[in-house]
């Protein structure tokens, strides 16, 4: 009989410990009402009885009460630093394309306003059309290549959304518009191989429109169109081989350039986590 009692006691104790431990880990949503509770008396309004009841009734099991009708934003940017390496390609020149590698460094003053800087390095590639101009028309195109660029930008987030993937998973994203001013370094590609080249630094306002997908609390993926507007200088078509490079540059014709690029970037955010400041 004694052994029976001991056996029962042991069993109940072990089961009871399991229940107690489970009860401690269960109410993951319980701390939120408790955290907001001290604020409520300061407003002079009594705390709702339901809220008090919820705290008193803990632990409770998960139920439909845990389903929030309007979920909060999945990602907060205000007060965080974004480091975003990007790569891209030019879109609107049929003779030469540039691949770009660069980075954005943005600080978000609020969740929708940011200031930042960007820098990028270009690698050129002549297109098939460019290579055919000589064969088909007996002419050599006058081209410039971009070297690098930098800019100071302001950013704004006018839109925020979410989508479902086959109505199974919900993802969040936003639209951003950046604009600013910077400089771009370019260099002529001499039509005669071996001729000296000159470089030009041009003032280059830019405007960017893109969309950003939130992957985790600290990681985003973005795609953007970036348009850089500047007045570039090109090699004169009547360049004389006896001219010095300074003379060539002095009479180089200018032409307005609209350099449209498509870029993809990864955004890393610091600090790597954030806290909601409003109750759920």
């Amino acid at each position, binding site marked *: 009989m004694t052994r029976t009692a001991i056996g029962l006691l042991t069993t109940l104790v072990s089961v009871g410990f399991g229940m107690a431990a489970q009860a401690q880990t269960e109410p993951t949503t319980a701390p939120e009402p408790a955290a907001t509770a001290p604020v409520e008396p300061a407003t002079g309004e009594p705390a709702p009885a339901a809220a008090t009841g919820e705290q008193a009734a803990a632990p409770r099991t998960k139920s439909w009460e845990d389903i929030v009708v309007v979920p909060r934003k999945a990602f907060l940017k205000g007060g965080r630093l974004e480091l975003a390496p990007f790569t891209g390609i030019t879109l609107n020149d049929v003779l030469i394309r540039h691949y770009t590698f660069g980075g954005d460094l943005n600080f978000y003053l609020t969740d929708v306003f940011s200031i930042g800087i960007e820098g990028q390095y270009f690698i050129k590639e002549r297109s098939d059309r460019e290579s055919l101009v000589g064969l*088909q028309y*007996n002419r050599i195109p006058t081209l410039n290549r971009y070297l690098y660029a930098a800019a100071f930008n302001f950013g704004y987030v006018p839109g*925020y959304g979410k989508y479902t993937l086959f*109505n199974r998973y919900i993802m969040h994203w936003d639209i951003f518009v950046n604009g600013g001013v910077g400089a771009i370094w370019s260099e002529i590609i001499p039509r005669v191989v071996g001729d000296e080249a000159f470089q030009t630094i041009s003032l280059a306002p830019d405007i960017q429109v893109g969309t950003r997908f939130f992957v985790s609390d600290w990681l985003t993926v973005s795609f953007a169109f970036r348009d850089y507007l500047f007045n570039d200088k090109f090699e004169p078509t009547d360049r004389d081989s006896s001219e010095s490079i300074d003379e060539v540059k002095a009479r180089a014709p200018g032409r307005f350039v609209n350099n449209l690029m498509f870029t993809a970037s990864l955004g890393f955010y610091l600090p790597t986590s954030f806290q909601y400041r409003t109750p759920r």
Partner: protein
Amino acid sequence: MTKGTTFLTALAVAAGVGMPLAARAEQERKSPLADAPAVRRRVELRDKRFEIGVGGGATMGQDFYHAVMVNGRLAFHITDWFALAGWGAFNLTPNFKTAFHEQLDSALASAMPTKERTPSVDEANAGMNKIGEVFALQAELVPFTGKFGLFSGLFMNYDFYAFGGPGFVDFKADTACTTPMLRRSCAVAGFKVGGNFGLGMHLFANDYFALNFELRDLFVQNNASGRDINGDDLADDRDLSWQSNYILSMNLMFFLPGRATISP
């Protein structure tokens, strides 16, 4: 006998208490939303609905002639995520030269055509073709659907889709190519069949009206310059190559029936 009774009693109690606990733990580990769709009471804006509309578009990255187009689109959404569609466009600006074309004209204007390869402006232009009409059939996959807010005031449903299918481009030329031999300029004209693929999206203003944007690539065989490419000093079919024709279009779309169903 006593030992056996004790063990069996303990086992029975443990089983009696533990099994419901295990079942409860299993139940608690499973979210109440585990099998639920991401969105309940969702407006099925596409399912079993026709879509018809018109709009405009423009080519991107053409060598010699831009094309600003008027286009139409017709689709039937078999499910909320799959549709079959047709699209067609007509070029309204057959003489809209690209910046490269204009620079080439000015560079050739001063040229003195000789026995060398340099063509006159007229000879160069005679070889160039331009897009006349384009048609495409496409299957559309709509994996992404959602809602967004603009300036926290304008809320719209939207979707993104990818599409693919056959594409047809009717190339036009100002000068017909008649001389079969020893020709250096011969414009490629007529229908070319190839691939059509791209991305699109709808922005729904309400249940029955949406803005539609599509970026497509019509991938067909062409020689836009109509001049020799392979170096045999003769412009013919051997100079054809597969080339992309990017077209960005926007359509005003109406969905039928006008009222969308709502999911459970």
